[in-house]
Structures are given as C-alpha cells and as structure tokens.
C-alpha cells in the first residue's frame, strides 16, 4: 500500500506491437478467404448475367445455346436430393440414436461401427461413385441410370456426416434430463422419444440440412455413374432418367461452343442460390425450434 492504486494500463511497446501483428494476421486470413470467394462470385455473376432470366429455368437443355435452359436439371437435383434426404435422415438419425443411447460402448462391434462411421465420412466421393456403378447401377441391384440410383449413392456419401452431426446433437442433451426421465419409470425408448429427440432436434436438423446440401453440389460420384447430360423432360418417379445441376453445368462448360459459357455461369448462380436457400432454411428452422424454455 505504498503508491495510490491505479488501473491505467502501463504502456508497453512490445505488447502492443504483438497485438497489432496478431490482428493483422487475423484480418489477412479473413481477407484472403472472402476475397477469393468474392472474385469467383463476381466473375460468375458477370459472365452469366446475360442469361440470368426466367428462360433459363423454364427451358429444357438444347443444342442451341440461345434456347437452352436447365429446367430438367433443377427438377432432377430436387428429386435426387429430396429422395436422398428421405433415405439418409431416418437411417442416420436412427444410427446416431443407437450409438449414443443404446450401444454399450465396451462391445467390440459397437466400437467397430463407430470407427467405420468416422472413416466413411473421410472417403472421397468418387469412391462411392465407383461402388454405386458396380453394385447399384449395374451388378447386384442393376437399377440403371435412374433417380433412385443417384439417391442411393448420395445417401452413402452423406450418411456418415448425418450420423456424426446427429450424435453431436444427441450428446449435447444434458444427462440430467435422461436421469430425471428414467427415475420416473420411463423406459429407455420413452426417454429417447420424449427427452432426447425433442431436445436434439434443432441440432440434428441443422446438421442434416448442411450435410444434405453437400449432396446438392456433388458431381464426382454422379459422373462416375454416367448421369445423362441431355435430358429434356423432368423426372416423374424413382425410376426416371435424370440429370442434376452440377452435371448440367459440367456439360455446358465442356461444350466447345463459346455461347454456352454464359449459360454455364448462370447455372452456377442458380445452384448457389439453391444452396443458399437450403442453408438459410437450416438456420431458420434451428431458430424456430430452439425454443429456450
């Protein structure tokens, strides 16, 4: 207690320089990431601006670039992604519930499943394409080039991610809810249905939509499957032939005619908008259901 107390910071040159350098690093990182993204975005929008109109989404693909559109690709994408979600969400959430709530962690087969799920999430999508080509399109299932083939392959692709994000969400539900429920004589299944799933729902939904939106932008496995690039009708069922936006874009870009370039750019913008809508829906639904009691 010699000097009067002071809370004024003592100037320290070395410290403030370090602070400054660190901040500069952070901003540089942010700038590079955003800059690259913006450059791409602006480039695509400028290139495609001439074709960004309702004709684009209303017309079917055509050999003449002036009349060509992407309607069948948009509907194809919606079909394939929709069916993929319908298959992968129940399977993925079910697997996550099993692994988190029911599996005894010291059993070797449960550990094997866990390890496999982690590994599957890291497998390149082309590999799933090859698998689908051999066993779903041809081979055992022989489903041909149809919507269901594409959906099954994309399901394999997104399923591990759906399982992982759902497990995260389930794990975030406080254990005290489970214990409280079990202590009231509820069975484990009742506890899952009444406590775990409702509380994990926003997280499961957000994570699942984000992983399914990956399927929307995926082209490699569908290229492996030999998705058709010139389809002039919309899919009508699971056994319809199909094309999807990424494949259509790929076809237009690789076309020799220069006029197809703006068309491809405009299609990319449409795909980006679809992705944005899906992600926005994920955020909206999360906020909607995350009713904090």
């Amino acid at each position, binding site marked *: 207690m010699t000097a009067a107390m002071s809370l004024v910071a003592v100037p320290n040159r070395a410290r403030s320089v370090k602070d400054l350098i660190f901040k500069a690093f952070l901003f540089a990182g942010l700038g590079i990431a955003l800059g690259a993204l913006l450059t791409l975005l602006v480039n695509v929008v400028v290139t495609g601006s001439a074709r960004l109109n309702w004709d684009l989404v209303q017309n079917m693909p055509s050999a003449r670039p002036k009349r060509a559109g992407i309607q069948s690709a948009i509907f194809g994408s919606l079909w394939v992604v929709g069916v993929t979600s319908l298959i992968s969400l129940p399977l993925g959430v079910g697997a996550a519930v099993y692994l988190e709530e029911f599996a*005894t*962690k*010291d059993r070797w087969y449960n550990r094997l499943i866990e390890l496999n799920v982690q590994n599957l999430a890291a497998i390149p999508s082309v590999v799933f394409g090859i698998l689908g080509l051999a066993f779903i399109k041809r081979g055992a299932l022989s489903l041909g080039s149809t919507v269901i083939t594409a959906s099954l392959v994309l399901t394999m692709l997104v399923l591990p991610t759906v399982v992982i994000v759902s497990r995260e969400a389930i794990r975030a539900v*406080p254990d*005290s*809810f*489970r*214990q*409280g*429920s*079990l*202590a*009231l*004589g*509820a*069975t484990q299944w*009742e506890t899952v249905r*009444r*406590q775990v799933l409702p*509380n994990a729902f926003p997280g499961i939904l957000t994570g699942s939509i984000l992983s399914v939106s990956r399927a929307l932008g995926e082209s490699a496995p569908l290229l492996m499957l030999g998705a058709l690039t010139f389809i002039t009708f919309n899919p009508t069922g699971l056994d319809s032939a199909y094309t999807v936006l990424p494949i259509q874009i790929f076809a237009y870009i690789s076309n020799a005619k220069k006029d197809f370039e703006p068309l491809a750019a405009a299609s990319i913008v449409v795909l980006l908008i679809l992705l944005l809508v899906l992600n926005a829906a994920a955020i909206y639904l999360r906020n909607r259901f995350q009713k*904090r*009691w």
Partner: protein
Amino acid sequence: MQQPSIYEIDSRSVGDDMTQQSVPDTQAQQTAANRDFEALDARSDVVLTAHDLSVFYGDFCAVRDVSMYIKRGEITAFIGPSGCGKSTVLRCFNRMNDLILGARVEGDVHYHGIDLYGPQADAGEVRRRIGMVFQKPNPFPKSIYDNVAYGPRVNGTRRKSDLDAIVEKSLIGAALWDEVKDRLSSSAMGLSGGQQQRLCIARSIAIEPEVLLMDEPCSALDPIATARIEDLMQEIKKQFTIVIVTHNMQQAGRVSDSTAFFTTEVNPNSDRRTGVLVEFDRTQKIFSNPVDPRTEAYITGRFG
C-alpha cells in the same frame, strides 16, 4: 420406537462387519445374519433391506458390505464424508447405478422381500415405486404442467381430467401450488432453484411411489429454500418413505428418524478408498450417544 429390539439386531450385525473385517464369519454367525435379514424382509414396516451390499465400478470397490434397512413412513438419512459411498448405496435402491457403465452390484437389495436385482424386477417398475430427487434440480425444458404430468403420462395416464387432478394434487403436495397455479403452462426453467427442486419433488410424487430417494436435495439451495424442503419432507413422510443423502449433519439431525453413518477406509493394496457403513441407528442415538468412535469424531466435527 415400537420395537427397540430390531435396532439391537441391526447394530449387532453392523458391529460384526466392523470388528471382523478380515476374520471370516463362522457358520453360526452367518446363519444368524441371514436369519435376521429374512426376519427384516418379512416385516411389514420395513420397505427396503440391503444385505452385504457391495458396489464396484470396474475393479474399484466403491462401497462394501452394507447391511441396513429402511422403515416405512420414516426419514432415513445417510451421512458421511465425501466418497464414502452414501450416494452409491442410495442409487442401488432404485437401480440408477444400472446407468453407469461398468457398475456392478453384489449382495442383496430387497424391496418388500423381492430382490430388486432379480430376474422378476424390471428397472422401470422399480423406479416407478422408488422415486428419486436429484442433487441439482433437473426440471425438463417443458412447462410446469408437463413436468408434473410426465411421469403419469409415461405410465399410461392419458385423460386430461385425470392429469389435471394429478398435477394439482402433486403440486399441492409439494407446497408449490399456490406459487404456480396461475402459470402452469409457463416454463419450469423460469422458476427459482428452490421452486425447481419442489417441482422435481412434485414430479416424483405424481406417480405415487412408495419410497422417495433424495440425493443431497438441498445442496444447491439457499437456507430459506432448504428450510421449505425440510418442512415439506416432514409433511410428506406419512405418505412416502424418504431416504435422504446429506452433507449437512444438522439437516440429518433435524429431519431424520434414523441415520446411517458411512465413512471411507483405505484399501491395503491401493490408495483408493472404499466406503463402509459404520453405524446405523435412531438419529437421536447417533447424535447423542454413538457407539463407534469414528461416528463420534464425525458428529462432533473432528473430521470430514
């Protein structure tokens, strides 16, 4: 109270546990202990009995050789220093230890003579009859009404009028009705800590269990809320047999009829401590004239 002899039986068998830890029981003593246990099981005023109960977490023995019983319509308190296994024993009474990976129970726990860990005992049914209130208030993220109606709903009550009646009765029983009757549909998370704990008690008694296990129910509450819970316990003990684990000796002295004192003993071959039951008797006896010097040391605040 009515039959002091039963307490003599019990303090003798507990004494055996202590004095003859390493010496194997003789055949005669073993038979006598078993006979006592069977006699306790047959008594209508005894709800729960534990006989040579030991609990292991993996290889580690958390508590060993506990023999005691819980009398109907009484409050039984478990006291003792941290890690003495009192919560572990409590959780054996409604099989909450099942939920812990690697937990294993040896010995017998009987509920009206039925083996709680036997093949005919379903964990859900056990927990419906032997309810539990946790250390930290854990209301569900639902409305006050839905919290109380949760137990009846999972146990098959569907009619709205039935549920309404149960909710009102339970909240009145938990001395919470007057405070929340106008906002039954608002969130249970908006209640104060003490109200939340009383809501958890209301939730537990809504399914009319016979026994209510309370695992340090006041440790997260302020003194006023604690006093209200203690008053509440006195009121509901006629309907519900209560077993309470507490760190607070004064609380045990104030509220309980019987007290079990647990402590830890160092294992000879490892540095981990195993809990043992030292003394089990009427609360008055434990606090005024304990038999074991360790109980006396704890009661008078010389350790723990």
